[in-house]
């Protein structure tokens, strides 16, 4: 299948008062048409930075893309002009933020906020048509059209996230970037919102990049998963390969070990020991080596190359000698 979005060798750094912070270091990702890619990682792994860079929304001038390409339908977004990228934002690629409480403008009626997206990208539509479409969108996400005139403070958190989803879907984008869309919601609402997103993704036939640190959410919603750690993709594969397959990256293994499971009776969860490396210093070897239970001398000195078997890619020296894992 053709890649809708392909990120190649992306390097992003932030210049701060304390020095340069290397947030993303050589990320390779791809999202196919209509699929959901889960982007998993701890806080500070570079998930949001990667997502923002797709829309050219990194905070300037602190952040800079040092290397790499982001191809959306074979068009390099990093090279696109401001005008071009503005046309893509909201129309072809939409984004949903983590906190629906603060992502809606408090002094706008929710209908107007949804309609705003249409007013920007569907200028040819008349006022009536825009209002009608907005009302339909609100209904699609499970908010009655009678709530058109409500202000955000009159809605619950889950409903606000639904409004955000309606805004993201307004122009039927090909790709939806969902940056921890359910982190700020409580668990029952989380399930509802995710179900809605899954349902709508199918209905609208769009692809989705679901950014989260919740592996449960990934397992339920994603076809493929990329595990991000310290600005590098350590493992990519289908959800089955990552969750149920025989082999994984030691880091992924560690993450899975830290989740409680109803099937196994264990008295203690095993967290991944240690902390994420200081992003202002680039490690010469594997980024996970200092926390890895299988760490060897080679891991500390030598950066492992990505090896793959089928679509499953792993960046780890443990797989270097195995014949079926090719570079």
């Amino acid at each position, binding site marked *: 299948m053709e890649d809708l979005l392909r990120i190649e060798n992306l390097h992003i750094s932030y210049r701060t008062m304390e020095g340069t912070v290397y947030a993303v270091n050589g990320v390779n990702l791809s999202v196919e048409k209509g699929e959901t890619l889960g982007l998993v990682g701890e806080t500070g792994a570079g998930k949001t930075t990667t997502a923002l860079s797709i829309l050219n929304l990194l905070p300037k001038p602190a952040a800079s893309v040092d290397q790499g390409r982001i191809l959306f339908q074979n068009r390099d977004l990093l090279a696109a002009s401001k005008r071009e990228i503005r046309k893509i934002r909201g129309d072809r690629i939409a984004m949903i933020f983590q906190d629906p409480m*603060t992502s809606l403008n408090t002094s706008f009626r929710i209908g107007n906020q949804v309609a*705003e997206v249409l007013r920007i990208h569907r200028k040819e539509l008349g006022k009536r048509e825009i209002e009608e479409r907005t009302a339909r969108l609100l209904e699609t996400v499970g908010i009655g059209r009678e709530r058109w005139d*409500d*202000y955000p403070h009159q809605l619950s958190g889950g409903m606000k996230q639904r409004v955000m989803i309606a805004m993201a879907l307004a122009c039927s984008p090909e790709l939806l970037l969902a940056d921890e869309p359910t982190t700020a919601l409580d668990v029952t609402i989380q399930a509802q919102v995710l179900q809605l997103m899954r349902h709508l993704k199918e209905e609208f036939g769009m692809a989705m990049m679901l950014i989260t640190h919740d592996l449960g959410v990934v397992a339920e919603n994603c076809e493929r998963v990329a595990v991000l750690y310290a600005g590098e993709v350590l493992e990519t594969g289908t959800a089955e390969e990552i969750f149920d397959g025989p082999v994984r990256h030691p880091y992924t293994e560690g993450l899975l070990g830290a989740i409680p499971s109803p099937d196994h009776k264990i008295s203690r969860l095993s967290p991944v020991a240690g902390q994420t490396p200081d992003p202002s210093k680039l490690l010469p070897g594997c980024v996970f080596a200092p926390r890895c239970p299988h760490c060897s001398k080679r891991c500390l000195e030598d950066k492992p190359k990505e090896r793959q078997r089928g679509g499953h890619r792993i960046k780890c020296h443990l797989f270097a000698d195995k014949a079926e894992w090719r570079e």
Partner: protein
Amino acid sequence: MKRGRPFRKRGRWQAVWRRFCRNRLAVAGLVLLLFLIGAAVFAPAIADYERVIHQDSANRLIAPCAAYPFGTDAYGRDLFARVIWGSRYSLSLGIGSVLAAMLAGAVIGSAAGFYGGRTDSMIMRLIDMIMAIPGTLLAITIAAALGTGVGNLMIAMSISQIPTFARVVRSVVWTIASEDYVEAAKTYGSKTARLITRQIWPNALGPLIVQASLSMAQAVLTISSLSFIGLGIPAPSPEWGTILAENKSYMRMYGYLCTIPGFAILLSVIALNLIGDGLRDALDPKLSGPVR
């Protein structure tokens, strides 16, 4: 399109209005201001302009009575008609110059607050330079350079007030620009201008309105001051400060000649200040105490 309303919902401005109405002093200020605006608008109906300029040496310096409610001045002109017509100058110039300064200040301040960095530094240092000169003095200087007259006074007043607005707007815009909903608006493709006018300004309006009403009070005073020293509206026109200046030599014997126009200035300044205070409380619910 008809949208059903299951129950009555208050918009943001309705809530502000409700809180404003709870403040009696503010409502008194508003009534007072509406009264003054009414006087200005219906001045031709209240007193013929002929009475403003008509000199009558037979009726000089008459104390307030039924025929002349505010008395007459040294030229026998009807002070009541002059004060009523004078409200036109004070209020229109006060409100007009503030609105002009507000618009200019909003544009300048938004640019500084939104872009930040070097743009911000350059604009704000320029504003600081202007602010180093006292507002009234700046207005005097500009008025002196441009000459007297309504148009020039308006320009002088506006320019001297731009820095205040630019500063207020800049700080508010600066805060709002980092809100998530502004970031979200960028993700769906808003242009910078649309971002500022549609996402940021509606939220910045509160502090701006408060500043405007307080600035109007100041502007009314400054206009009268400038006219009093002869840099504002020139002599025969019935501007309140001008009337004060004309009559100041009669003040000891005929006190009403100065106290009445002075009182008019006082009333409009008080009205605007009360409204400003009321709006500040109404727009910031956190300040206004428990909801009754």
